[in-house]
């Protein structure tokens, strides 16, 4: 935690100074996930890219005020969430992440006594670099993330990729901790299923 704060303080200094090299580091670290995340809210890639550009401008304009109380990623994604939700509202779409979500995707995997009906497979062929159907496993994973319902996608990106802690995620998406845990669990289960199918 301390090391991250030291690194983030250095990044903040570079961003405040308008240092291009620093901005490139931060941009490359977060931009792709920001577009993917914004798409969950505005539902359109071109609009998502516009919203992300606006968010970057806001980040650079206000970074002098970033005090390190949250993580830098948490702060950036909070700005982005607000921009994306404003844009969605302006486009006439009401966005709420406070959903229980769909039914329990694992329910069918267990019998009446709570035991596995079919044994889960050994994933002997699932490595990041492996190519299946012309794409790497990681490209398949990104495609599976894009296919998640928006609320699950948003939570997975923030918590499972960007390393925001629970409190940051709940604050950014305005959801309860309980809701966040359900969404995250369902998102991970859906990804597991998608990866499992690659082996078939």
């Amino acid at each position, binding site marked *: 935690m301390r090391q991250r704060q030291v690194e983030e303080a250095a990044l903040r200094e570079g961003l405040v100074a308008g240092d*291009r090299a620093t901005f490139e580091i931060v*941009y*490359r670290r977060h931009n792709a996930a920001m577009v993917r995340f914004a798409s969950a809210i505005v539902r359109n890639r071109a609009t998502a890219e516009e919203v992300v*550009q606006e968010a970057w401008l806001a980040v*650079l304009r206000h970074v002098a005020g970033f005090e390190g109380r949250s993580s830098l990623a948490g702060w950036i994604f909070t700005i982005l969430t607000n921009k994306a939700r404003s844009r969605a509202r302006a486009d006439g779409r009401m966005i709420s992440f406070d959903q229980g979500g769909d039914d329990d995707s694992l329910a069918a995997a267990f019998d009446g006594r*709570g035991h*596995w009906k079919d044994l889960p497979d050994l*994933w002997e062929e699932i490595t990041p670099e492996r190519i299946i159907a012309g794409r790497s496993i990681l490209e398949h994973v990104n495609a599976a993330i894009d296919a998640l319902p928006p609320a699950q996608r948003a939570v997975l990106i923030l918590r499972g990729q960007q390393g925001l802690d629970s409190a940051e995620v709940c604050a950014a998406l305005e959801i309860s901790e309980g809701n966040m845990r359900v969404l995250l669990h369902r998102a991970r289960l859906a990804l597991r299923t998608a*990866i499992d199918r690659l082996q078939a």
Partner: protein
Amino acid sequence: MEMDDTKMLTCREVAERSEDWLNQDLSRWQSLQMRLHLAMCKGCDRFISQMRVTRDLTRAAALVEASHDADDRRISAILSALRDGKETTG
């Protein structure tokens, strides 16, 4: 909540607690229950392994894309928009 502490976990309960298990977020008693079950249940042992791989691939997927997203033009556009903004409001 489970009142009977002596009852073994079902596979379904293991699956529901998998996230907390991987995050080391279970109490000592709950961790012990999980460990006992995983030692005896091949299905759940594989499932937990799958969830661990899923978690690791999820993290890795974000990083791989980031390294290809070298959009110099966009970076330049953002930085010049920032400078223009500063000039007009300055």
